[in-house]
């Protein structure tokens, strides 16, 4: 170990990254991976059929039913795993939509400047002036809430914040030498944006993706919890918390496990965003 960093590699600061394992990042990625895999492969991994009823109603955790059972005797671990599938699909759809729209919105604003920029950013401001959850209510009452609509609605709500971030990141890049050089080469506009600028803002974009995913899960869970999101028989974690809330005096494990998972996933995504943001600052100090 002591000999190798002496050579050229040191300049690329590779040994430092190798020797310093970033624990918070690794741990949160691993845990997130387990939760995602558990949800994606729920049909194979779940111990019971999530709609199989039995006479063991509202039981607490036991070896037979790790998360207990619900009011119809269905195994809650299996329900949580299957619910995770829907939760994750909605969150993933929403995040993807927010990133695509947000990047387009922010880039157009930053690149055109002037009046279009003014209009686009005022629009973003006025969307952001309404608390997200209330705006979500407006959209839901207009569109209704099936999983697809919910993903679209949540995605739209996350777009303005993303657009703002993209705009300011792009504006900073426009000052850079490489960008001037690309203009001098005569690159067409789409090339300037997609090939030159986009790869250079991937740092902040990655952080924003993690934050958007966390927010998407939060919003969907809140909406399903108040009964305006996914309604039974379909269930996300938010729906399960809603159902557990009705039985809060009879069973603690009904509500606590789905709630815990929602918290855990959002928390891990936040930790991840923090870590990624921190490492970005170290790599490329812009100012």
């Amino acid at each position, binding site marked *: 170990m002591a000999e190798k960093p002496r050579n050229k590699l040191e300049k690329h600061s590779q040994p430092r990254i190798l020797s310093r394992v970033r624990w918070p990042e690794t741990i949160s990625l691993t845990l997130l991976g387990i939760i995602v895999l558990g949800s994606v492969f729920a049909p194979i991994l779940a111990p019971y059929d999530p709609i199989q009823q039995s006479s063991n109603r509202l039981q607490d955790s036991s070896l037979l039913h790790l998360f207990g059972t619900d009011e119809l005797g269905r195994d809650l671990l299996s329900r949580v795993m299957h619910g995770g599938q829907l939760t994750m699909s909605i969150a993933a759809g929403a995040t993807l939509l927010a990133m695509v729209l947000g990047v387009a919105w922010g880039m157009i604003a930053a690149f055109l400047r002037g009046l279009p920029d003014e209009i686009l950013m005022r629009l973003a401001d006025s969307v952001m*002036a309404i608390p997200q959850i209330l705006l979500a209510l407006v959209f839901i009452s207009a569109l209704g809430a099936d999983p697809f609509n919910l993903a679209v609605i949540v995605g739209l709500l996350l777009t303005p914040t993303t657009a703002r971030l993209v705009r300011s990141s792009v504006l900073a890049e426009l000052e850079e030498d490489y960008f001037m050089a690309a203009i001098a080469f005569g690159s067409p506009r789409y090339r300037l944006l997609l090939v030159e600028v986009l790869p250079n803002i991937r740092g902040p974009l990655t952080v924003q993706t993690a934050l958007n995913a966390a927010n998407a899960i939060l919003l969907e869970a809140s909406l399903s*919890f108040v009964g305006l999101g996914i309604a039974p028989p379909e269930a996300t974690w938010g729906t399960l*918390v809603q159902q557990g809330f009705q039985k809060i005096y009879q069973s603690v494990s009904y*509500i606590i496990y789905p709630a815990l998972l929602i918290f855990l996933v959002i928390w891990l995504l936040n930790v991840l965003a923090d870590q990624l943001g921190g490492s970005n600052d170290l790599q490329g100090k812009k100012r």
Partner: protein
Amino acid sequence: MGMLIATSLLIFTVLRLLPGDPIITRLGATPGIDAETIQRLREEAGLEAPLVEQYLTWVAGIFRGDFGQSFFNQFSVTELIIMRLPATLQLTFTGILIAILIAVPAGVWASLRPLGVADRITTAFSTASIAMPQFIVGIVLILVFAVQLQWLPARGYVPPTESLSDNILRMILPAVTLGIAGAPLLLRYLRATMIEVLASPYIRTAIGKGQTGSGVIIKHALRNALIPTLTMLGLLLGYSLGGVVIIEYVFGIPGLGSLAIDAVFKRDYAVLQSVVLLVAGLFILVSLTVDLLYGVLDPRLRVGRSRG
């Protein structure tokens, strides 16, 4: 003002241009209704007028303090809002007060030794509580204090005019929920400002002339650190106004938030659009006030600007 117009247009457009008919929803369960009645009801609710006219009627009404008529019950929207507003305001302000009571001591404590034990503890707590959805904070509090310990009632609201003690008793859990959810926002910001202020030359001067520790911290440092934190308070209020929607639902409080949720279930656009606009308006107003106050409270800001 421009912001308010944009916001109101946005809410209105989303509600009217997207599919779904409130009158048909309302009549959904009633048998034997013919097309004529539906037409008449639509006209009564003002839904047959051109969209521009509907919008202008709504906005013109707001200036007279008249938000229009609920599609579903006999109350006007203004009456409904006035009935529901006190609970929401009480919850919001108590919640923010609790957030301040948590954040200020914790933030100061954390800032005294950056990266010290206190700092690490508060950072860990604030990171966790930022990730904690408000309804889960509420559920945990209900589980502990209402279900297990049975110290406090879990749900409901009693107006203070009816019974002050009942009112306070039922307000504790929801307000603490809101406070816990909002505190990290303030805490993180206050901590950063405090660390910055404590490192500045005038603090060294104060210590140099023989001021004791707590005097320096409270009199010199905290007072200066609180001014920028005020900006955060505006943001916190906006955040709380969104948060009360969910918290009111968890604790069964009849406020603006549960009014909005009810309105969604019934597709009562008249109520929904006004409640959302009112909240957005409050938020914009608060941010504006904070911006103005900021200049008044911190003369350095003005001097700094003219120097460029």
